[in-house]
């Protein structure tokens, strides 16, 4: 067991948690949150596993940095859509998925 592995496992759990949230929650904002959690989980796994040997590997760092930027763009975009949807329909859930306060 190394810290890297500990974090990788945490990341995997986070991923599962986010997945669960993404699938089960109906409120779109919460889906966005869940997606972000999943993303963070992924990044943790990436860096954590890469570091099992103990020494620092610069490649995953670059990857995660890119990944964070991508995730933020996606989040911003999703939030914009959610807001528009809310303006249009007064709801922040997808039609046919029930209401979530």
């Amino acid at each position, binding site marked *: 067991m190394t810290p890297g592995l500990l974090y*990788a496992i945490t*990341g*995997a759990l986070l*991923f599962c948690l986010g*997945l669960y949230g*993404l699938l089960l929650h109906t409120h*779109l904002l919460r*889906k966005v949150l869940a*997606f972000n959690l*999943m*993303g963070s*989980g*992924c*990044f943790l*796994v*990436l860096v*954590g*596993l*890469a570091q*099992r040997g103990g020494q620092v*590997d*610069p*490649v*995953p760092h*670059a*990857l995660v940095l*890119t*990944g964070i930027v*991508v995730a933020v*763009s*996606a989040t911003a*975009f*999703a939030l914009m*859509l*959610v807001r*528009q*949807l809310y303006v*249009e*329909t007064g709801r922040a859930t*997808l*039609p046919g998925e029930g209401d979530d306060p």
Partner: protein
Amino acid sequence: MSPVLNWVAALDWIPWLLGVPLVFALLAFQFGARLAERLVVPVFGLGLLAATGLALQVLREGPQQHALGGWGAPLGIELYADGLTALMLLMTAAIGLAVVFYSRAYFRDDGRATGFWPLTGFLIGAMNALYLSADLFNLYVTLELLGLAAVGLVALSSGSAALAAALRYLLAALLGSLLYLLGVALVYGAHGTLALAQLTGLLQPGPLAWLVIALMTLGLAIKTALFPLYFWLPPAHGGAPAPVSALLSALVIKASFYLLLRLWFELFAPAINLPAAQFIGLLGAGAILWGSWLALQQRELKMLVAYSTVAQVGYLFLLFPLASFAPGAEAAWNGGVYHALSHAFAKAAMFLVAGAMVFAAGHGEISRLGGIGQQLPLGIFTFALASVSLMGLPPSGGFVAKWLLLEAALASGQWWWILVMMLGGLLSAAYLFRVLRQAFLPTPEDASFRRPPAMLVGSAFLLSLVALGLGLWANGTLTLLRVGAPFAGVTP
């Protein structure tokens, strides 16, 4: 070869394929739709030229490599193009060009053009980048960018339905790419590299490999809308403006399929086992039958075409059980890729012409389209040509694909896929003729038609001709596909 061809083949086309659409996107974003409309034809023409040039290079010199900015792996970005890549790029460029012509007429004096042009440039650029990428993480980034551009295009139409479709699409796309990313993380953790070339053959059977395969396949299957994960596709593809639908249905889902193909036959190959491949095939079969069945139920023209995509995607996935085991592997591989190509052209033509039909009739209800044959004869002819390809009837690209897939199924003795394909072909005929028969019905009393701009039908017609032509020039296409293909050494 003539000097012009020599010159074309000598240039380095890869940076052009990436740079030109992105620069166009930026310009269109910065300076608005007016400029974009003026620029777009030369820009996409250049794209087609570049794709052709690259294809020629690949054909003459074998797979091409290019290190972006002079940096090599692992930190820099390495690009790679073999026959499959070249074909996909050509497909993207050709369909992109046709869609561009169409859109210039379709979005005339339409506010949506402001968003459409930059997003399209972005989409094409991301797609080209994806096809050229040779490492897992680049693929992730391009996949994500592609998804975002595609969702942006879906969201162009205002209204709650379009927004909901866009959001559904976005969430599905994000989920898909995250699953894929987790797989990437595991692969990197295990092997310490992301370059596909270095990873080929490294993955050994075991729980880790299976987890990786499951995660990546699941993620990409969501993005390709494989049954039963297609829920996001029909509203997004059916509800978007026609040129957007064409881009999405023809090209975007092919990108994730392409990636899956690469992964299965390069990265996963050593760890693949029979049940997994059969399972994927089973989902494909489910897609063919269920998608066709749903298409039969649709009342809206564009929804029918969208569900047809759900069904047609199924054929793509029959490739996996068929190509995983010799004999027949090469035929299956060729057939699957061929299906992707011909479906792209046929479906793009079909969505474009559906847009023209909706424009002409003022609505999209299939049962009220009677008389469209007189109003839009070339349009319905285009629809028929595209249908021929989708039904897999000769002489079309779809037929070549079906032939190859059937050949593979017979060679490997997997007769159950034959039944599925035959049934699928008949079902597709059933739903497509629901539209085609409208051409023979009299015009309803209350119908009013207006003439769509000639370009709407014209560009769709050209695409449908290409879909047909793919059946006639299969030899050349397959030769290009063999360059660097995983089965290139295996003769049937």
